[in-house]
């Protein structure tokens, strides 16, 4: 039996580079976690927005003004990234775009499009 190579003792985090698909994947997790944590916030917005004209105006105000709008921009990115990378994973599940070059291209497309859409959202509210 051959001896297992010993575990690396030197890990330079700056020299470890993620393949683009790994970035898409971990960002899917992070965005999903952010969306989960913000569920009470979304539910609260739904609640007040349906209580009448004043509540509706307040909900719009919360999303677009004040210190919370940075948060709403992050949540917009989370939603766009989670949706787009989710569609990509479903397509890969049914066998579309599994080849490495296609998978890399779609990963780039998802990462960049989510950022562009989030920037477009930010541009509207800032």
């Amino acid at each position: 039996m051959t001896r297992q190579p010993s575990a690396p003792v030197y890990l330079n985090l700056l020299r470890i580079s993620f393949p683009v698909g790994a970035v898409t994947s971990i960002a899917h997790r992070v965005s999903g976690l952010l969306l989960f944590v913000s569920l009470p916030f979304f539910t609260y917005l739904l609640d007040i927005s349906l209580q009448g004209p004043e509540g509706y105006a307040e909900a719009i105000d919360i999303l677009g003004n004040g210190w919370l709008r940075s948060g709403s921009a992050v949540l917009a990115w989370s939603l766009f990234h989670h949706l787009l990378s989710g569609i990509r994973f479903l397509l890969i599940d049914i066998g579309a775009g599994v080849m490495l070059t296609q998978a890399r291209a779609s990963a780039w497309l998802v990462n960049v499009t989510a950022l562009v859409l989030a920037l477009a959202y930010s541009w509207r509210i800032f």
Partner: protein
Amino acid sequence: MSRLAHGLRDWLLQRVSAAFLGCYLVYLMVHFSLQPVQDYEQWHAWISQPLIAIASAGSILAVLVHGWVGMRDVVFDYVHTVSLRLIVLTLIGLLLGGCGFWALRVLVLATA
């Protein structure tokens, strides 16, 4: 049901709820891009349409299923102590259940 069948069932639930939520979200984004809501009356009228109200209730349930399976997978990957796992999973279940009940109640009261 065996553990394997549980895993397969959850894998499928995750994808079915994802497909439903994906369709709902894309519809929302396209609809509100083309016809932005201007005030409370329009917003209330839109969500009170029977098909939209039913689809919205369905998407709330889909979020509960999707959020539960997704968060449970994340917890199983990063939390290895059994007691801590139980505590975190309980908190996740409470948050999901609470928000789901709250959102459905809002939807029913506003549209009924």
